[in-house]
């Protein structure tokens, strides 16, 4: 078998497979070997679909041998957060309770689209219970561990996705982001993550959390791989009520276009508070590289975060009401107690939060008339230690679990597209959010690509690799 580097990108893998320098089966076996060797430490996978992966890889190799066209992800191993339906698996969504569901009869739309492009699904990934989490810890399956220091959190709720890509087990993973669950693990694990515009990528056959905030998206170790995965997953889908009917807008053709002409600003006010020095340093490095000192105030961001919190806790409670009654002891207690409290929030407050949301969206969209890209921290800190319950933010001791996402929540609240880029600080990386106007993922990806070429952002190799 050829020597396949764990750091080989998805683009390089697909090129090598298509060019018949390596077989899809060899790329798949290499990924399965890495998972077997290293996931005992990372705990990022809950299911390894080895038989399916080998069968799929052999089929791709057969197509190539027959001279048939294969997609731009030919032979690229990938994995998905375990809230995606995978044919034959019960969609556990990080819970104990959902393991009693019948096995899924059909893959999630995004898995089908990745595989139609030649990618090879190798398994399902650990996550925080029912996605109500920013830590990546899970009382049922154990925590997803940080690839740069396994005594630290991977971030959540897509913890396994962050850990598997950050740990170079697979070049691409898929996850979900309701309040920050793609951007937080990207930040803690030192990788690239894309939370697209709300409605851009189909959520069909994935387990929901807060339907009006739920987004799916990719993680990768480079901006190019992120764009590659994103482009093949776009397209309308009648099976997701919120999925846009806009035509596919590929981002790869403009990925190397640079940032000439783009108006870039740093989010001020709320986004410059509640930070550890590392988070401020990361934003400063990105701003310097993009040659901007301009700032922009996102109005009422604290209230936006509060409103997102209210909608989340109440919609989450509504989703799980029956299970809270019938199987309360089968929940993670921390999730159960938050959901029970969520069921008790008066409805008038929820309606107010949704009205505020419309006001806030209009104000923020106004900002995008004078700016194309906004920079903000992805997390207030680098990855905390596993089990860490509190941290000090601006002199106030706060619980870690709900406060890791304070800078991501006001953005997903109104569905803006964001690329989280990794700034490779020592000893731990940390992310910065590149925030664009709705449907302008291309702008955030262009900036991410340029920053990567400049060496300002990069996915560091996991320690011990």
């Amino acid at each position: 078998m050829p020597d396949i580097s764990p750091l080989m990108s998805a683009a390089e893998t697909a090129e090598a497979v298509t060019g018949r320098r390596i077989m899809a089966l060899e790329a798949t076996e290499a990924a399965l070997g890495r998972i077997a060797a290293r996931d005992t430490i990372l705990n990022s996978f809950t299911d390894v679909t080895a038989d399916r992966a080998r069968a799929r890889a052999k089929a791709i190799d057969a197509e190539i041998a027959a001279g048939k066209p294969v997609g731009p992800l030919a032979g690229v191993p990938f994995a998905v957060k375990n809230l995606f339906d995978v044919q034959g698996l019960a969609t556990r969504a990080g819970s104990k309770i959902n393991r009693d569901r019948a096995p899924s009869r059909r893959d999630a739309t995004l898995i089908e689209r990745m595989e139609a492009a030649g990618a090879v699904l190798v398994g399902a990934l650990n996550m925080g219970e029912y996605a109500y989490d920013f830590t990546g810890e899970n009382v049922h399956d154990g925590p997803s561990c940080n690839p740069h220091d396994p005594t630290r959190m991977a971030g959540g709720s897509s913890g396994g996705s962050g850990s598997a890509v950050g740990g170079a087990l697979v070049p691409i993973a898929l996850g979900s982001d309701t309040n920050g669950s793609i951007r937080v693990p990207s930040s803690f694990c030192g990788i690239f993550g894309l939370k697209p515009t709300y409605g851009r990528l189909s959520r069909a056959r994935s387990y929901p959390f807060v339907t009006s905030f739920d987004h799916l998206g990719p993680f990768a170790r480079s901006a190019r791989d992120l764009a590659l995965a994103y482009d093949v997953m776009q397209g309308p889908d009648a099976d997701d009520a919120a999925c846009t009917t806009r035509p596919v807008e590929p981002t790869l053709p403009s990925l190397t276009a640079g940032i000439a002409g783009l108006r870039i600003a740093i989010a001020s006010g709320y986004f410059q508070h509640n930070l550890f020095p590392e988070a401020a340093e990361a934003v400063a490095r990105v701003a310097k590289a993009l040659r901007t000192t301009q700032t922009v105030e996102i109005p009422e961001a604290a209230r936006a975060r509060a409103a997102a919190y209210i909608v989340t806790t109440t919609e989450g409670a509504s989703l799980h009401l029956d299970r809270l009654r019938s199987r309360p002891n089968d929940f993670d207690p921390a999730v159960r107690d938050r959901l029970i409290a969520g069921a008790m929030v008066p409805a008038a407050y929820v309606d107010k939060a949704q009205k505020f949301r419309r006001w806030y969206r209009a104000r923020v969209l106004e900002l995008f008339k004078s700016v194309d890209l906004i920079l903000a921290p992805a997390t207030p800190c680098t990855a905390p230690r596993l089990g860490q319950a509190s941290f000090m933010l601006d002199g106030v001791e706060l619980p870690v679990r709900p406060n890791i996402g304070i800078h991501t929540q006001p953005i997903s609240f109104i569905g803006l597209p964001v690329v989280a880029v990794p700034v490779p600080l020592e000893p731990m990386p940390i992310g910065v959010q590149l925030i664009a106007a709705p449907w302008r993922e291309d702008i955030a990806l262009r900036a991410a690509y340029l920053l990567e070429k400049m060496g300002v952002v990069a996915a560091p190799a996991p320690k011990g690799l």
Partner: protein
Amino acid sequence: MADHLDDYIDAVARVMALPVEDAWRPAVRANLEVSLRLARLVDEFPLPDETEPAAIYSA
């Protein structure tokens, strides 16, 4: 306020048939206090009566 909130938790739990065991009550209460504090922050913000909620349903 403390007693009122405990009374409220008891009443809503009964009305909604939600179990709140004694061991869970402090955490449920702490979470509800955070949610209500944040809800008040939103509630304090003046909005025109005509403001539409940001629903995603479309006919």
